[in-house]
């Protein structure tokens, strides 16, 4: 092509500048704080001290993996059922699915808390059945339930989208070649909807492992997930060095998870092709 004009080159400048200052520089600050002490000299102390948080990391990872798995197990069939509805019904369901995503996470978590609260409807109902007084808020289950409830739409939406975009001819070809509905689902739809699954899993896993609001509300304030720990380090602690170290490790943890997942999806595609 011909030489690029001044305008074309200038158009990139604001974004490059912005990215450098507000995306790259902050991450460098995280690295800097993670590897320095109060006086600004280099240290590995912060990273090494994280061993005392290993329980936190393991618990967060476990919780978010469970939440992601359950979201997939609930969300995939839901997307599949939705995709098979009539177009009119699908449009309405789509709005119903999007609406919760537009409502702030704070509000939705808070609503769930209202329902499950120790004085709330569910416990009142169970108590009236003659059971003993149940405390639900503050349990592991409550926190995981919160994650599932909050992030389920993020699992369903991408899967549903890839499914509706699936070329109908593949399905016709499959049934032409003798697949029944079940076989079509497992041999054609599932492999072809993998990109949607991958992005759904990402969209549930990343916010789950880093949340602090859900565990604060539904965990009754007694939970220490990674998100809570980071939040406390930055909002309350005197220095940010430990918080920076935890953030850095979590970021790397997530990057590795995403890379592994992409690896899977790549090889999956290879199999299809």
């Amino acid at each position, binding site marked *: *092509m011909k030489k690029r*004009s*001044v*305008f*074309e*080159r200038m*158009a990139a400048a*604001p*974004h*490059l500048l*912005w*990215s450098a200052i*507000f*995306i790259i520089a*902050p991450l460098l*600050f995280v690295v800097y*704080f993670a590897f320095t002490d109060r006086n600004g000299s280099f240290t590995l102390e912060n990273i090494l001290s994280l061993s005392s948080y290993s329980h936190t990391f393991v618990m967060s990872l476990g919780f978010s993996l469970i939440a992601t798995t359950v979201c997939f197990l609930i969300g995939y069939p*839901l997307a599949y*059922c939705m995709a*098979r*509805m009539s177009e009119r019904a699908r449009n309405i*369901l789509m*709005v*119903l699915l999007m*609406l*919760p995503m537009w*409502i*702030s*996470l*704070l*509000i*939705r978590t*808070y*609503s*769930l808390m*209202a*329902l499950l*609260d120790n004085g*709330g*409807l569910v416990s*009142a109902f169970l108590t009236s059945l003659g059971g003993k007084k149940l405390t639900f808020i503050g349990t592991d289950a409550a926190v995981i339930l919160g994650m599932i*409830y909050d992030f*389920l*739409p993020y699992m369903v939406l991408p899967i549903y989208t890839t499914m509706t975009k699936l070329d109908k001819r593949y399905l016709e070809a499959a049934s032409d070649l003798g697949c029944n*509905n079940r076989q079509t689902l497992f041999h054609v739809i599932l492999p072809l909807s993998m990109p949607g699954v991958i992005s759904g899993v990402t969209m549930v896993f*990343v916010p789950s*492992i*880093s949340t*602090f*609001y859900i565990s604060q*509300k539904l965990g009754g304030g007694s939970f220490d997930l990674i*998100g809570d720990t*980071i*939040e406390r380090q930055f*909002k309350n602690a005197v220095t940010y060095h430990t*918080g*920076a170290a935890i953030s850095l490790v*979590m*970021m790397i943890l997530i990057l590795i998870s*995403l890379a592994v997942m992409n690896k899977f999806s790549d090889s999956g595609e290879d199999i299809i092709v």
Partner: protein
Amino acid sequence: MKFLSKFYIGLIFLILYAPILVVILFSFNESGSLSHFSGFSLYWYKELFRDGEALEALKNSLILAVASSLIATLIGTLAAFSIARAKSKRYQRLAEGVSNIPMMNPDIVTGVSMMLLFVGVAGILKLENTLGFWTMLLAHTTFNLPYVILSVLPKFRQMDKNLTEAALDLGCTPAQTFFRVELPSILPGVVSGLMMSFTLSLDDFVISHFVSSPDFKTLPLYIYNQTAHEVKFSMYALCTLIIVVILALLIAVNVAGSAGDSRMRKKVKKAQGVSVR
């Protein structure tokens, strides 16, 4: 099979909406109880507006959302333009990759890293109380940028390259070409990027939580503060109001969209009728 799938869809959506419906219902509850509905009342709504704090937070949220989404749309659109035009594939991937970092990273890391930047720079410059409106604006613009690029870039890539050349051919300078030909054909992408930024900014809590100060509170921050320690029924009222507004907007957009569609279809049909005749 059909019945089973309908039942399943119904069940999941019921569970999804139950808590929200409970909040809406109990926001009208006379007594401050979560288990007994004792009577209809607007008490909690009056309570909500008794001090001006909620309205102040709403105003702050709107100002921030408008400003950050406009800036992000401007910078992001230009960026998408230059990425789509860039000769080297490596640069394209790099620029896209960097701007996607805030989208891939968990919000808490983005928030924390920006807080460190602001605090760090303030420390170097010996400034106090740096956090506030301006840091919020910078942060919101930053996390809006990838969404603008994401919705505008495909429009640039889909655009018929001949259109650009046709404009140059007819005497437009590259800048004129951008504003007269390219911008109008990518406009749908720009608008959706703007809307997405606006709502993301209104909605954001996590990043704001780290780069804000108590002097400048947005609606999510206000809700967080109010619900930090106890159940507040005035917050149920606020949530109900927000849900109603979102619902109204969603319906309005959908109705307007489908109305526009059908009007367009009619026009095309009419035009085809003319040409057939």
